[in-house]
């Protein structure tokens, strides 16, 4: 998606080089789920 306000995990990770492989495994799913929840909430406000 061409936007400044929604990031895939890959985009987020690229901005946070401090995240190592072990951390990534533990956190990626949860971090992306919050991104998805906020997207769904924002879109809900317009339907």
């Amino acid at each position, binding site marked *: 998606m061409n936007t400044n*306000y929604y990031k895939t995990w890959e985009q987020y990770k690229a901005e946070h080089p401090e995240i190592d492989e072990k951390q990534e495994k533990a956190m990626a799913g949860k971090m992306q789920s919050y991104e998805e929840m906020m997207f769904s909430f924002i*879109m809900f406000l*317009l339907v």
Partner: protein
Amino acid sequence: MSDAMALAQERNQIFDDLFAGRIPKRVPVSVNLPIEFCIQYAGQDLADAQWNTEMLEEIFDKACQDFASDMLPVLAFRFPSFYKLLGAKNFVMSSSGFLQHPEVEGLAREDYDAFIASPFNCIMEKILPKLYTELDKDPVTKAMTLAKAFKAFHDEMGHAGMVYGKLIQKYGYTDVNLFAGFCEAPFDFVADQLRGFKGISIDVRRMPDKVEAAAEAATPLMIKMGVPPVPSKHASTFIPLHMAPYLREKDFAKLYWPTFKRLVEALAEAGYPSFLFAEQDWMRYLDYLEELPENTRIMFEYGDPKLAKEKIGKKHIISGFYPVSLLKTGTKQQCIDKAKELIDILAPGGKYLFNLDKSPVTLDSVNVENLQAVLEYVSTNANY
């Protein structure tokens, strides 16, 4: 096995057959009673119960007790808390406690290009602040407001989901959920809260290329919104269809249909059927609907049920057509006769789910005894 579990198993089988194109044991019955109807039926105050949602379980339970349905018959998803926190202009509670949806314009005509270039940027930067006054403030206030509203949204939805789960278990409803996802036809998304009915009606004539490009730009957002994380044939994405009956067919064919069709196809490819509510009269578009993926679930408001059955009844799953207005004005026998008439037309060959042509918004939209009689009649007599 408890009675409720046995009932749920039987109902799930009926829906499995319906969705697979097999003839089920009987015509499945669904009715959608909105929160306002349920609150009034339970004798509670509209504003009080919509704000204090811990009252909902008892309120919905009463509706489940008294209205026959194979599917959970109650639904609420617009709660005043998060709309009020955000300063919504698009959903406003009236003094009587109804959440009204006034005509709004979230997207100014001169902002079409910004929306086409990046719809989500435009939503965040221009549209939300126009529709939600508390998001049109300084950055800190905006951040605090959004956090509060997001929390309220998840609290309300989470609580409602828990109540639904308890009622489904208690009454042995099918686990089928026709409202598991929610999105709009891309054209309707641009029309409803972005340009408004008046604005889009002018734009279709004066700047159709911008409208077409905006619907194109909105399509990936609608697909993303409509595809849930876990696909299931027992769930659907609900897509209420609004503007098509108000368009000329040539405008429909160019501006509405292509992106809408792509949306429904994308959801189907993701393993997720659409549940379309064809609001107003869609009879002149039946040939278009026939092109949608097989077993698309379509609820009709007005039109000719015979024509719909003939043109798309072998391919798609039809519901609706039962006039809520008759439940207000007719005698009990007239109401039951109407149900018989629709079952005779729509049930042969399967692919038919009984429900009304729209939700009865308020308690006085219907004579409650008529509604109960019709649901009871169909539940017990519409056997194959």
